């Protein structure tokens, strides 16, 4: 059984909110502002965009699905390239690390759907009047949902390469590049592949949101499943929504079976610790490849090419030894910190000039109050989801055979973009005249609750059999059993799942707090709705404010609540 427990990278670092975080936040907001400023002048060119007419004909769905998938893979490729460069620099350069890692942490917390506004318009301006701009924007949106956790994963792996293996490569005089290919990347592979898979799942959610987007009075529609769903909502066609759901399920099933499962099973050989009492992940596709001579012949040249790359020796690099007794150049550090600080100040100034003047304190206080409403919504839903999924997860986890059956289903559900199913919920709310403030709320956790289930199952499975036996032999039962054995036993896993779920929920609130069905529009109070409405009316200042507020809430909540909780849970954990 191979229940990985997904672990948000921000948990792995134990530094309190410090000055680098604030600098990082300023830099990111500054970058967004630059996007927005570029976007402001670009309104006119948007009208020139050819709208490709979308049809609700189910026969068009395969093509839409293929286009959507293609965008996904384009984004995945970019994410990988970004990961390799960014993580390597962060891991190898001490000064760069100081700012790059907080940057990443903040980027993870910025609501990606808020980005869309700026990036769409920015890319449209880069390629005025051409579909390419919109395509780039969509791919970029997915990229921003995929890259960060992959980068964190690689960074973490690079920092934790076992010392003896590192010494071995050095004593064999491998060049830095050879070391990267033969040691660092293989060591990072399992984590990277797993995170890529998680990213892919998250990506479906955002592509559906990114294909049909309205900014100000411009609507951009790219042919794809997302646009198909958007049109179906507009025309109140419940049948078409059903087709889209089926198409999506098929796509996810195929990519899971044909691509990711084989890669995960293959990457398992790079795992260092072989101690986990679990069956290695398996894949029938991989087995097919391994056992079939013809298919293997197909792959062998690629494999040897990769291996050849791995041992290329760049003639001008001499194997060096790291300077263990580094003399830290304080003046260099100071110059570095000062220039970062200067950039941050410039960001702050630009932010103020561009947006600050249009906003009053009242706006800030409104955004803050709305953020509190969304915060309450997120907390309540995490609690509700936990009450449902913790007992179920424990029940499944205690039955390994059952867990084997449930695992693929849960992974599958996590990959399914919940926003495709939103219209069905909205339809129900409208037809029963429910209060949107209450009934729209469950939507924000629809897609992310599975992480709680995942992790609870993984945690229960990881409990040593001896402990379970001891509990039985001591005749613990009922509440004592939960309170003394299960809850402390699975807590680190549970917290990990809950933090992922809560992060995803913030993001989802932007699409979930405002939902439409034809002409009917449901709006809940909350920061997500605030950002969504500001986006629609092209009010960049308020979008910026909303994004900044949400990022701040997520970061502070992570640091003040989740991380201490995790540290506490992990301190006495039997299993990590």
């Amino acid at each position, binding site marked *: 059984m191979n229940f990985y427990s997904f672990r948000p990278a921000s948990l792995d670092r134990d530094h309190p909110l410090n000055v680098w975080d604030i600098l990082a936040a300023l830099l990111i907001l500054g970058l967004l502002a630059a996007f927005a400023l570029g976007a402001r002048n670009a309104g006119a060119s948007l009208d020139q965009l050819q709208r490709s007419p979308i049809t609700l004909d189910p026969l068009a769905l395969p093509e839409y699905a293929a286009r959507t998938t293609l965008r996904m893979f384009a984004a995945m490729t970019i994410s990988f390239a970004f990961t390799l460069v960014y993580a390597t620099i962060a891991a190898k350069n001490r000064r760069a690390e100081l700012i790059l890692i907080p940057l990443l942490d903040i980027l993870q917390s910025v609501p990606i759907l808020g980005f869309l506004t700026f990036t769409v318009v920015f890319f449209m301006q880069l390629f005025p009047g051409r579909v390419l701009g919109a395509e780039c924007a969509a791919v970029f949106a997915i990229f921003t949902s995929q890259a960060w956790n992959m980068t964190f994963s690689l960074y973490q792996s690079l920092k934790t390469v076992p010392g*003896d293996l590192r010494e*071995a490569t*050095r*004593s064999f005089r491998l060049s830095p590049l050879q070391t990267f290919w033969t040691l660092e990347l*293989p060591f990072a592979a399992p984590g990277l592949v797993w995170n890529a898979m998680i990213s892919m799942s998250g990506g479906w959610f955002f592509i559906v949101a990114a294909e049909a987007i309205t900014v100000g009075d411009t609507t951009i529609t790219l042919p794809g499943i997302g646009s198909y769903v958007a049109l179906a909502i507009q025309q109140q066609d419940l049948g078409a929504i059903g087709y889209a759901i089926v198409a999506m399920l098929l796509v996810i099933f195929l990519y899971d079976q044909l691509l990711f499962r084989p890669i995960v099973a293959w990457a398992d050989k790079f795992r260092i610790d072989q101690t986990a009492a679990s069956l290695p992940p398996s894949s029938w596709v991989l087995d097919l490849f391994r056992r079939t001579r013809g298919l293997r012949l197909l792959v062998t040249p690629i494999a040897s090419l990769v291996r050849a790359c791995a041992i290329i020796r760049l003639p001008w690099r001499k194997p060096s030894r790291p300077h263990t*007794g580094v003399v830290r150049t304080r003046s260099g550090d100071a110059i570095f910190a000062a220039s970062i600080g200067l950039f941050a100040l410039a960001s702050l100034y630009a932010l103020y000039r561009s947006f600050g003047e249009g906003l009053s304190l009242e706006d800030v206080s409104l955004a803050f109050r709305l953020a509190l409403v969304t915060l309450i919504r997120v907390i309540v839903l995490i609690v509700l989801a936990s009450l449902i999924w913790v007992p179920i997860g424990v029940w499944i986890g205690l039955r390994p055979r059952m867990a084997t059956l449930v695992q693929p289903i849960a992974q599958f559900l996590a990959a399914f973009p919940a926003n495709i199913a939103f219209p069905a919920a909205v339809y129900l709310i409208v037809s029963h005249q429910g209060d949107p403030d209450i009934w729209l709320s469950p939507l924000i956790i629809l897609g992310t609750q599975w992480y709680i289930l995942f992790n609870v199952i993984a945690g229960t499975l990881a409990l040593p059999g001896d402990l379970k036996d001891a509990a039985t032999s001591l005749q613990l039962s009922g509440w004592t059993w939960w309170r003394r054995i299960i809850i402390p036993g699975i807590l680190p896993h549970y917290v990990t799942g809950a933090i992922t779920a809560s992060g995803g929920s913030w993001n989802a609130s932007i699409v979930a707090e405002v939902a439409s069905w034809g002409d009917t529009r449901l709006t809940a109070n909350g920061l997500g709705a605030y950002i969504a409405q500001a986006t629609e009316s092209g009010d960049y200042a308020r979008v910026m404010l909303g994004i900044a507020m949400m990022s701040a809430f997520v970061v502070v909540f992570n640091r003040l609540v989740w991380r201490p909780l995790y540290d506490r849970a992990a301190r006495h954990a039997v299993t990590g």
Partner: protein
Amino acid sequence: MDEATPIIELSRISRSFPRSRGNDLLVLEDVDLTLRQDEIVGLLGRSGSGKSTLLRIIAGLIEPSSGSAKCRGERIDGPPKGVSLVFQSFALFPWLTVLENVELGMEALGVAKPERRKRSLAAIDLIGLDGFESAYPKELSGGMRQRVGFARALVVHPDLLLMDEPFSALDVLTAETLRTDLIDLWMDRKLPIRAILMVTHNIEEAVLLCDRILVFSSNPGRVAAEIKVNLPHPRNRLHPAFRKLVDSIYARMTQREAPRPARADALATNGVGLKLDHISTNVLSGLIEAVAGEPYHGQADLPALAGALQLEADEMFHIAESLQMLRFAELKEGDLELLDAGKRFAQMETDARKRLFGEHLLRHVPLAGLIRRVLDERPSHTAPAARFRNELEDYMSESYAEETLDTVISWGRYGELFAYDEQAEMFSLDNPV
């Protein structure tokens, strides 16, 4: 290649590591070493004697802080050509097969594939790994894994083979088989190497394999003695000359050394800066009982005792020295002799033992005394662990400070001198009632 040039020449090598607070930590001081062809040299010492650091300086993985290190007459600047390393933890790449692991070093050097394959298979054959070529390391036992480690090091035909405690991660039988195989190949001149330098803390292993043994003292590491072993191979562990040599090295390593200048500051603060080895009180009691009982009656020969209790020499030293520090026993020329308190301790019931242990801890371990004094003086009767940790870090590395603190906590708990809350990291005087 000039045969007369020593393979390795070290002179006045020192190495210190920077610490986050305060002064650098000196781990090696003024070490000279010359290694010539056709000899096996052992670096023997306790943990913390810097012998692994020295090995890594020779391997070109660590730079010395001062002194000169030469390999074949050239300054060592990065891993030198013709030097291979065998690791305690094997350091095999789990995603490469046995053959691929062995080929790795030659791949890095750009050796052509047919040549690579030929030499790898020869090395695999030599080291007794035939039939395992396509296996992954996780499929192999520890002994087989270390054979891969040897094959990987030998395949590049190094002049010098460096071994960092190569047998200490293996069980007793496997380790002995590997040692015998290695020395047989060496004696038959089948190994494509000219000299071996090995780090070990196992005295018998050093005497069994080496032509010359450098005994290291600790804190900072220095060469305390150089011992030539003139016994012919294969050596018999039970031969009187062998035993005599082992006994004499034991005696030398348990000699109480005169306070050295580097530790003067530690002694100036009444010994608070003494490092404690984390030995469980159960082990301490167990050793007292063992020495008090048959056949030792209060006095035991350390090598024999270590053999009977299946303890490594290094572990034995730690336990014996802890007992000596607590004044339950005394080390004399390779013997452990119980003092009166130790003999009484052996006869006592649990509660009385704990009281006696507590008294000795308070009296003879300055750190325990300090903690108790601080707790008594403060009105709240609590004190954060950080207060003592900081003080310890003035005298030793962070990891040693942590170990010392852990030790005093567990000893203090056993002796019921104080209580400790691990979550809050606070010492206190209250005991759960």
